[in-house]
């Protein structure tokens, strides 16, 4: 430190080659304050602080009154703010104008590191236990084995957190002849969906099931591309696709009638309804799965079976 170009410890009566004192070196007087030689200024400063705190007092009375009167969020916010501002600014002015504490310089001390002999001492203390332990390798192996088994046994209770079966990720509540119902539970006739219209439907009894929501889309007599294996999955122009985005599971709910595209509002994956709901833009990696539908004897829309592939976002064992 003695060769620092800026700070000469000798100025503070410190031997530059000796250890630094812990505290602020003598000779730095930080007992001065802003208005110590100006009683009038000090009085004004005092009044400023008192004024700030009076604002807090007023705001507090206001707060109590607003509460009793039934509460009002905007007024409460303003009054809370006023109360805290008054108190806080008062404290800062008090410190700045009336309390001692100019800047001082002190040593950083030797807090950061210990002397070599201390380091040796701690290493020796540790060794006192380590060395005799190291002479028993058999016990270490035993401890490792026991610890491992016990560790596994100890986490068993965590298994209670969730069921272990993952089969329900592969299936929805649609089955053979499951009626499609609307949000209100009403069955759907094919004519309920006008050309270019869409309707969200659910397997009867499972309106809140997260993977089952399905879109009925009436594409009219537009050319509709699907693989030959799926002949007969539609009711004329009425097709059914999973509403659950194959990207991250949001409902793909925006239908652009002009382009016949479904857009998922979450990350804008776009699916082309006329070509098998293949993704044409955005992060979704796979088409929306198609649900085979038909009508039952009462003429209502039903599913022919469950989806033939897992719906929604992917997972390791999909």
């Amino acid at each position, binding site marked *: 430190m003695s060769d620092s*170009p*800026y*700070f*000469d410890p*000798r*100025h503070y009566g410190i031997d530059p080659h000796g250890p*630094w004192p812990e*505290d*602020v070196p003598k000779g*730095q007087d*930080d007992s001065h304050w802003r208005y110590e030689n100006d009683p009038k200024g000090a009085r004004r400063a005092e009044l400023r602080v008192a004024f700030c705190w009076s604002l807090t007092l007023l705001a507090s009375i206001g707060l109590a009154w607003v*509460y009793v009167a039934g*509460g009002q969020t*905007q007024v*409460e*916010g*303003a009054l*809370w*703010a*006023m*109360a*805290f501002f008054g*108190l*806080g600014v008062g*404290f*800062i002015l008090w*410190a700045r104008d009336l309390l*001692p*504490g100019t*800047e*001082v*310089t*002190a040593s*950083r001390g030797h*807090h*950061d590191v210990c002397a070599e002999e201390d380091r040796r001492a701690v290493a020796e203390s540790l060794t006192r236990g380590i060395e005799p332990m190291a002479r028993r390798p058999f016990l270490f192996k035993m401890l490792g084995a026991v610890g491992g088994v016990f560790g596994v046994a100890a986490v068993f209770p965590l298994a209670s*957190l*969730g069921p*272990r079966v993952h089969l329900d990720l592969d299936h929805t509540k649609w089955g053979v002849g499951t009626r499609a119902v609307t949000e209100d539970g009403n069955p759907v006739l094919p004519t309920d969906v006008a050309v270019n219209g869409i309707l969200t439907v659910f397997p009867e009894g499972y309106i*809140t099931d*997260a993977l089952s*929501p399905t879109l009925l889309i009436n594409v009219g007599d537009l050319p509709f591309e699907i693989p030959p294996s799926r002949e007969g999955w539609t009711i004329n122009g009425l097709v059914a696709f999973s509403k659950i985005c194959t*990207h*991250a*599971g*949001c409902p793909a709910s925006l239908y652009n009638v002009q382009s016949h595209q479904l857009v998922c*509002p*979450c*990350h804008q*994956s*776009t699916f082309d309804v006329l070509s098998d709901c293949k*993704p044409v833009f955005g*992060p*979704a*990696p796979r088409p929306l799965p198609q649900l085979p539908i038909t009508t039952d004897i009462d003429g209502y829309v039903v599913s022919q079976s469950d989806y033939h592939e897992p719906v929604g*976002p*992917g*997972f*390791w*064992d999909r």
Partner: protein
Amino acid sequence: MSTTEERAAEQKRYAAGKSVLDTVDERFGSSRFLTSVLDKIFPDHWSFMVGEIAMDSLIILIITGIYLALFYVPSSTDVIYAPTSGHVYAPLVGQHMTEAYQSVINLSFNVRAGLIMRQAHHWAALVFLAAVLFHLCRVFFTGAFRKPREVNWIIGVTLWLVVILEGFTGYSLPDDLLSGTGLRVIYSIVEGLPLVGTWIVYDFWGGSYPGTTFLTRLFVIHEFIFPLLIVGLLTAHLMILWHQKHSDFPGPGKTETNIRGSRVWPQYALKAGGLFMIVTGTIFLLAGEIQINPVWLYGPYNPYTVSIGAQPDWYLGWLDGSVRLWPHWEFASFGHEIPNPVFPGILIPGLLFTTIYAWPWLDKKIYSDYGAHNLLDRPRDKPFRTGVGVAAIVFFADLTIACGSDILANDFHVGFERVIEVLQYGALLGPVVGFVIAYKACQALQRTGAHPIQRPLGGVIIRSANGAYHTLSDHHGNGHGDNGHGDNGHGDKADAVANGHGTAEEAPAPVGAADEPAGASD
């Protein structure tokens, strides 16, 4: 000038205070420790305040959070909104919702002062994260993470991570349509993890989405586990800071081995207390006047509805943006698949955070500097590091903008496809451009010596009677010269600078080029 009575009163107060301290000392031997606390010196710089602001908002979060927890019902049980007394929010009457959502509606409309506390809690979270992020940048750009402060960097980054998660879990508790959509996406991201994904989500949610036990667990996590972690980590953070002492910018009278500032008692304590109250006041002002998260407008969550404009809170925007910008790739073979959202949702953040965690050690390698530092760098003096920081900020900013891609497309009447494409390029090229500009700017600043934010140290220009100009710094000559002599002028000089009558640019900051990694300087 004190009178005899005044002096007597002073004596009496001293004696009273001392007797209390004696009583304590007889039990705890605390006098030496307390002295060291009261006399502790903290350096002053506006940028050091930001860590304090973070701490202040944490205190507000805890207090308002306890208040909210007294009313919140962590239950997924389905109810139909039909209040029989108090304020009835008409648009929701008759709708299915979880008890959790209903309790938040009641807290907002039927608990007096409930809404202001709810909004203060949310605003405090936003201020908290802004402060944490700003604080992290200040530590990064000034090199405060260097030896011996690497551990505080690690703790700090962990705090950032936990605070993000804490914010997200809190945001999800009301179980409204907006937060439910966010949860759905997070579920899918985690579900996609190789091998363990489905297990993790089944354990957390108690089954496949949306589960029945999730809100209870989320509540435990949000109001117990994460706060405990945050308070624990912050305590360690501050104890380490206390022990190592705060770093400081170079300046007159400052060396690696000394510290300059005002003592904790009374200056620093009162000012820190005042700052806390001002931060609190600001948060309550925001809470009262600017509505936040009006969940009654979003409606209760259900898995088949979603609103457009579904954005997370700003501090998580970059993650949503990353998920939006990642192309439609995924990995599938051998009968297994790693789905698309895992890459932008886990891999990218994982890489980013690993780099941020590792930065103190990368920095050592880059600058071949393994030594301890108490004096901070000025950002311009380390153009490479500053460039990397700016590149990271540009990257995060690009992703954050991307989380509003649909809103941008709407506002600017362009296809959202174009917005996404532009931002995809932005995420790749923006950081490079940011790095180059920052690097050049640092070099230019080094040459001019101008300080962009602080008061100029360049000296005072004096116009003499005959119209000639000269600067005070010229007048004083080389500042380094008169320091080594130990003349009496020294102390005054240091003070004079501190008071703003600065002389020449005196910071002993190393000039950058020599510090730059080989090959990076030009």
